[in-house]
């Protein structure tokens, strides 16, 4: 079992939160600030989590790693890699700046998400500085835990609006024995149709993306299943670097100067007719859109197929996150009021009222 104690700065973080509570001053929580482009602008004093870093415990045979929020994802990935394990949610590292806390707070997952789960699916426990100025622990380091409400998973994707995440325990998994990527020339409509069909079969897919020209697939598993699927699917071998490019938004598609939108839709939705360029990820469940189209038009089109749209370009849109239905918004506000009564944590980052 590896135990390291890099730096426990939780006392200082708690002190800063208590100071903010005493003066009712808003805090802008940030780690590497690598996802500053996402969400509404927050006015407030910066609370920087990066001094609170390091792996608290990691036992590969338990499949659990616990680390402080300010730990860079790159460091976490390196430690896991050494033990032949990985974070299956495949988060973006954004030039090495991204931290564990930011990964959980933003809840953004990479290409493997539909097959291995989102960030929230891996979260087993968290420590949290609350709006009552307490440093508390929820969940734990065990795979199954249904004692009390699942606050840890609630924090995933809450963009710091419910408190300061200081420590996270995550489920990790062994890396697959075999991994190879394929490129199959076909148009997007056929690709989506094929993906819906293959999704019903035990094919060891772990990523599927269409870049406008061809379908890109990643196969992961044992030697036998990967070889059999490769044989069956055909196509040409693809450099695995494609997936890092997709995850880190470095593919040429992302260089397009138009605003970037993330469309989350049911995976079997057909090609979405919207102005601009699209790139399909998550086997069809996530569509990236580069478009000058009006936000209302994009949202209407996506809502019509029971999806939602998030604007990924800073400052382009007053409401980067898809608006909530009225009762949902009311309960979001009530939850915020209960957990952060003074409204000091990232006020307005997700929604003006939250």
């Amino acid at each position, binding site marked *: 079992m590896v135990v390291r104690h890099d730096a426990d700065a939780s006392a200082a973080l708690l002190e800063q939160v208590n100071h903010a509570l005493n003066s009712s001053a808003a805090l802008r929580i940030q780690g590497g600030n690598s996802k500053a482009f996402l969400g509404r602008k927050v006015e407030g004093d910066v609370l920087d989590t990066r001094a609170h870093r390091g792996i608290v415990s990691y*036992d590969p045979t338990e499949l*659990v790693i616990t680390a402080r929020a300010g730990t860079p994802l790159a460091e976490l990935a390196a430690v896991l890699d050494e033990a032949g394990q990985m974070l299956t949610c495949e988060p973006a590292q954004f030039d090495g700046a991204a931290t564990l806390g930011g990964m959980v707070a933003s809840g953004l997952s990479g290409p493997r998400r539909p097959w291995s789960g989102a960030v929230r699916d891996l979260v087993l426990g968290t420590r949290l500085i609350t709006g009552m100025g307490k440093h508390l*622990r929820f969940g734990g380091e065990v795979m*199954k835990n249904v004692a009390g*409400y699942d606050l840890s998973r609630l924090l995933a994707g809450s963009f710091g609006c419910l408190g300061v995440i200081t420590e996270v325990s995550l489920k990790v998994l062994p890396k697959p024995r075999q991994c190879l990527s394929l490129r199959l020339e076909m148009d997007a409509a056929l690709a989506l149709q094929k993906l819906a069909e293959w999704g*019903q079969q035990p094919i060891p897919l772990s990523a599927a993306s269409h870049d406008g020209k061809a379908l890109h697939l990643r196969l992961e598993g044992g030697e036998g299943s990967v070889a059999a699927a490769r044989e069956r699917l055909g196509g040409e071998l693809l450099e695995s670097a494609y997936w890092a490019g997709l995850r880190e938004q470095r593919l040429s598609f992302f260089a397009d100067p138009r605003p970037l939108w993330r469309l*989350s839709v049911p*995976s079997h939705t057909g090609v979405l007719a919207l102005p601009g360029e699209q790139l399909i990820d998550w086997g069809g469940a*996530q569509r990236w859109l580069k478009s000058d189209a009006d936000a209302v038009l994009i949202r209407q089109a996506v809502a019509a197929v*029971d999806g939602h749209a998030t604007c990924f370009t800073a400052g382009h849109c007053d409401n980067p996150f898809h608006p909530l239905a009225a009762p949902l918004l009311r309960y979001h506000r009530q939850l915020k009021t209960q957990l952060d009564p003074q409204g000091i944590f990232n006020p307005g980052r997700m929604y003006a009222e939250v």
Partner: protein
Amino acid sequence: MSILYDERVDGVLPKVDKSALLAELREQLPDMDVLHTQEDLKPYECDGLSAYTTTPMLVVLPERIEQVERLLKLCYQRNVPVVARGAGTGLSGGALPLEQGILLVMARFKHIIEVNPEGRYARVQPGVRNLAISQAAAPYDLYYAPDPSSQIACSIGGNVAENAGGVHCLKYGLTVHNLLKVEILTVEGERMTLGSDALDSPGFDLLALFTGSEGMLGIITEVTVKLLPKPQVAKVLLASFDSVEKAGRAVGEIIAAGIIPGGLEMMDNLAIRAAEDFIHAGYPVDAEAILLCELDGVEADVHDECDRVKVVLIQAGATEVRLARDEAERVKFWAGRKNAFPAVGRLSPDYYCMDGTIPRRELPGVLKGISDLSEEFGLRVANVFHAGDGNMHPLILFDANQPGELDRAETLGGKILELCVKVGGSITGEHGVGREKINQMCSQFNSDELILFHAVKAAFDPSGLLNPGKNIPTLHRCAEFGSMHVHHGKLPFPELERF
């Protein structure tokens, strides 16, 4: 300290006039079945935790969501507590009724609304049985992965409310990992959608928060679950060990070899003998522990992994490793495990099933602790263990007809859970807190953490009408429970050596 609702420590419940409420229900919801006589109410006095009973004031059996909507609006106006119930198979008393409340039975909502093979999801009403979903998906070679052992009877609404698990959680996750969307009714009777048909939805992850919230935050009226392609093959290895420690270490070795089995179960000698006696599964009755390791997936991989696991097991000191020869033998191996509870039930008039989880490395110490406690309390304990994910099910054998044995079993169970918390585990992995573990919540969480849980509750149900008293103890209860611990003299059975 009794787990039944005690207004002194659990909070004063609103006073409800039964006959006035009954009259109003009949007037406003004339076509909804309402049970109100003592003999009609009797079958609903408990759920799967049958040692504890409370007769509900009224039982309602709606058949349309509009009726539930109307009922909740009425209860909200009239300040009437509502306890939701699915199939009533829960093991922690999550659906234990209240004398001053309505028991809302959702079991008649049995309709499978849609099975969508292209989207790989099924949309069902909350009273649909867990297994019925997989049966409906079977024609498409798809299935719903979570398989609690009550799956032939338990309903999906209850599965969501409890975040139910099963024997395949390590690889396929709990209920929370296999949901896309739930429709709920709030305490005010307002409809709300959590999650979506896409893989995520805007805003906070309320779907995750509601999963496992034990009917405290809203009433589930529809569930959309993910379906997975059925694994091509599944093979089971049965390994025998001459010590529980070795079996425990073998589990870690399998995972260290980079293999995640579909199921990985351990049983100790008492459980092995009970199961063998009952099912004749071919278990080695002289082994101190057995491991059942199921490998599933694509045929070529499974074949390869079986070979790898066999080597690991032998190196870890297994005295025998058997691969189920065929599907019939595989089913037989599993039948022994799946019937372990009733099998143990044959050894004793009653048994009490615990549900603690621990980091796997703590297994030898915890088993030793359990065996010491078993001796101290004079009650036998059989151990069945979801070894892959650290979820223990110690079964405490007792006889409720012997005065005091139930209380002793309950105290012993509480001690086992506290032991789990002490080594970094949890008091419940999949059965839920309900009323059963309400006192042990005070060991796992401090008062500030409990205050935050109550704050979450207040955001969704400020008047506290939904399933009052479950899941999260009041600080008052914990204070009393804590003082009971400190002042030994107040414990029941002072003649027993405990500390």
